[in-house]
């Protein structure tokens, strides 16, 4: 169980975001996201919420919203 949980979290985590795009280097983004996996049980709820928001984003259903900032590319 100790191994399974992080693996499941990792899968959810990796599914929760779009593939990377080339833009300015933001070296902290990955390190911030990884903290969800390192946050234990409390991180699971946040991951699921992020996952759910991404699904809504992809389906263009209200509630999720794309937060890409204009002019970042």
């Amino acid at each position, binding site marked *: 169980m100790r191994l399974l949980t*992080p693996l499941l979290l*990792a899968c959810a985590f*990796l599914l929760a*975001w*779009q*593939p*990377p*795009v*080339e*833009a*300015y*280097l*933001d*070296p*902290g*983004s*990955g*390190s*911030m*996201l*990884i*903290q*969800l*996996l*390192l*946050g*234990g*049980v*409390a*991180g699971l*709820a*946040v991951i699921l*919420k*992020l996952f759910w*928001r991404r699904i809504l984003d992809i389906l263009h259903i209200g509630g999720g919203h794309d*937060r*890409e*900032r204009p002019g*970042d*590319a």
Partner: protein
Amino acid sequence: MPEAGVEPGSFRDRSARVFIQDDEVFRGLNERALEQWNTLSATAFFRRFVADGGLVGTERLDPAGRTLPAFAAEWAAVLRHDRIPFVSYPYEWSFGMLRDAALLQLDLLLAALDEGMTLKDASAYNVQWRGAKPVFVDIGSFERRPPGEPWIGYRQFCQLFLYPLLLTAYRDIPFHPWLRGSLEGIDPESCLNALGLGGRLRRGVLSHVYLQARAQAAYGGTRRDVKADLRAAGFDSALIKANATRLRKLIAGLTWKRGRSTWSEYTKCGHYEAADAEAKRRFVGRAAASGSRRLVWDLGCNTGTFSRIAAEHAGYVIALDADHLAVERLYQALKAENDRRILPLVGNLADPSPDLGWRNMERKRLASRGRPDLVLALALIHHVVIGANVPIDEFVDWLADLGGDIVIEFVTREDPMVGVLLRNKEDQYADYQIDVFERCLRARCEILEREPLGSGTRVMYWARPRG
């Protein structure tokens, strides 16, 4: 001491700036930083850590009655910090020092989170030392935690604390050259490569190194506002606490299991007859007790026997040795004694800490951080001249240029240790003769005392540079 004025290494955080005047350390704060200071100074953990010595003593300055530099007027407020006796850098610390500095950083983070604050960075350079006691000095790092914000300093903590410790603990790779060559620390990908396949199975590597390296590769260039995403999803301080608590457990359990090195066993190996050792101790004690000794450097300190003698008479002692294990053992001994007067550092005179960073001014060479009143160079000269090929007159000149008294032990060619150094080398050291050495010393210094030790192969000198 450093010149009065702005501390050139404090420019990164625009909300505050450190400056030094009349040997005192001040920090100018803008309006936002002043608000953070007002919050911090009212917390229980601030008082607790200052009382314990883990946080630098700090007070807000009443500008009335003090003459501060003109640029101080640009700031909303000015703090005065207790002075750290001698600034040092992570690439000069032993394994145990870096580990204890990391634990202090985590303890402060956890304590701050309990009271609604956080640390906005996690630089190892924010920790300094009073002897064997780590002291966190960057008061400007504390801020009220913005709701939903992750631990912004996590990556920096890994690069400057965790990865150097993992490489030394798991692979016996010294972190000093790496940190000296990269002020931002070791990136996850490089750490992963250095740990190798076997290292990936060790505790903490999968989560803090492997996953971070992969996440960084995948999301380092994302256009999404990750902070906003996390905030919207309800990122809570409980996540940071869980991560920091696990990190603390991981780091507290790391050990460097190097059993022995060239010099860590030196004093046990009987290089000295008992009578010689006693005469040497008395000689050093006399020199250290003479006059005001605010700062002493013990170069090639080994296990610190003479640093301790100097510390009986001096304000502060820098105990420097190139042998990491010898310095680590000295640190652990001093830590057990709760010492506050001897700072052990890893350093090689022939490959010394340079001026580094922006404009080569962020991190300074040793002599720019405080010149010694007394330098001990005991059984060192043969390593510098024969071991590192430094001409003897240049070594003596360098010692004299430091400006303080010099206690130097000359080891003659008849000594077995010199024989060991020459064993596999071409003897090109015509200058390594006691009469050449004395001529060089007299050219720059007045010799106050000269005492041959009973063994007949070692001579002690106490010299004072002229002018």
